[in-house]
């Protein structure tokens, strides 16, 4: 039994019973934790709007030791990041980011650097183009969680990149000669490979400030395929973004 405190971001929640909620946080000190926020769905809950998705705050919890779920005592808002919930594009891309963190990390596995990256990414998304921020974040998130794809040579035969008709597989690039013996590869152009290298290596502000141009759509497809392979299912936020964008086409503006 122990009381715990940490800075944390809300990365998910679902209703429990009559009026409670199970909330998933990604915290600086403890990594991913889940806990029950009692009566948080009641209109006059003491949590008020603090447990909204993407909110950054100071979490105080009690670990009873009897269940893997913590008891959430307080969550004091530091940054509401409300803008992320006020546009469908931002909501979808920020969801993609927290989904990657949720799926690629284990419970109570501290990862302070990833926490820093996530809060920085979410803060950037309030002002910068959401698609670019999400790609930069996910490219770095893969590195941080030990899933960094190798981009300098074919992972099978060692042939140096760049080479034509490259694909991306589990560990990194695969050349045309090695491709037939491997399942689930996605094509990746030399331009997208170079952009991905830059997204994960260049200073954050530079990456966020530079348009990706044509490679943006390709990179989203490539990283989605990579995520799908790692987590065993297509990221859910991608489906949401696809369906919501159909509207943008109809309405002729970006939500």
């Amino acid at each position: 039994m122990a009381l715990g405190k940490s800075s944390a971001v809300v990365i998910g929640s679902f209703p429990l019973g009559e009026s409670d909620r199970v909330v998933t946080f990604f915290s600086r000190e403890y990594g991913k934790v889940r806990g029950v926020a009692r009566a948080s769905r009641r209109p006059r809950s003491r949590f008020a709007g603090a447990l909204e998705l993407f909110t950054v705050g100071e979490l105080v919890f009690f670990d009873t030791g009897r269940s893997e779920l913590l008891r959430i005592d307080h969550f004091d808002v530091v940054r509401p990041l409300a803008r992320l919930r006020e546009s469908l594009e931002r909501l979808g891309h920020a969801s993609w980011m927290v989904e990657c963190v949720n799926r690629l990390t284990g419970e109570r596995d501290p990862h302070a650097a990833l926490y820093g990256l996530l809060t920085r990414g979410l803060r950037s998304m309030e002002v910068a183009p959401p698609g670019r921020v999400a790609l930069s974040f996910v490219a770095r998130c893969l590195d941080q969680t030990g899933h960094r794809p190798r981009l300098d040579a074919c992972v099978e035969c060692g042939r140096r990149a760049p080479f034509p008709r490259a694909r991306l597989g589990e560990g990194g690039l695969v050349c045309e000669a090695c491709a037939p013996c491997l399942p689930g590869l996605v094509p990746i152009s030399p331009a997208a490979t170079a952009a991905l290298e830059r997204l994960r290596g260049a200073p954050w502000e530079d990456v966020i400030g530079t348009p990706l141009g044509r490679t943006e759509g390709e990179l989203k497809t490539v990283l989605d395929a990579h995520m799908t392979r790692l987590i065993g299912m297509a990221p859910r936020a991608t489906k949401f973004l696809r369906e919501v964008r159909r509207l943008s086409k109809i309405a002729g503006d970006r939500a």
Partner: protein
Amino acid sequence: MAYYPEPVARLIDALQRLPGIGPKTAQRLTFYMLKRPPDEVRELGDALLAVKEKITYCRTCFNVTDEDPCRLCSDPRRDEHVICVVEEPNDLLAMERTGEYRGRYHVLLGALSPLDGIGPDDLKIRELLARLEGRETTEVILATNPNVEGEATALYLAKLLRPLAVRITRIARGLPVGGDLEYADQVTLSKALEGRREIS
């Protein structure tokens, strides 16, 4: 589960699939029912089957009903120029309890949720559009929950319906963020309805 006789294990398993019920609660409910008289248990079983056999969704508004169209859709005294859009049948009941609203409803049967992969195609949005086409609806009130999913749904619908010549309003923000509409008290909810605003 290996220690239980098969019928006991089967009931525990079935109860566990209900939302908010974990293995311990499922066991407790099962042993509770074993102690009750047969008539009482039969009544529960019959009620469960009846709800599935006799209740459907209204093909117009998607409220739960035992007749199609439902009573709200077929009541000529209700104003057919106004449609109030809610997430779930429970929210419709909450609106009805206020006694303030005299228009029609449309139940989406959910809300947009990126983390659950719920997009517009999973909700009764096409059906709402079909209802608005060629009818004399003058106002659509978006009464989705004041949480992330509900706000995203309202945002989406406002953009989708904008090209139509119809007034689109959102219930007032007096509702506390993060709460469920169905738990809002009647006073708060009728105030929210009264203070609804045009949404851009």
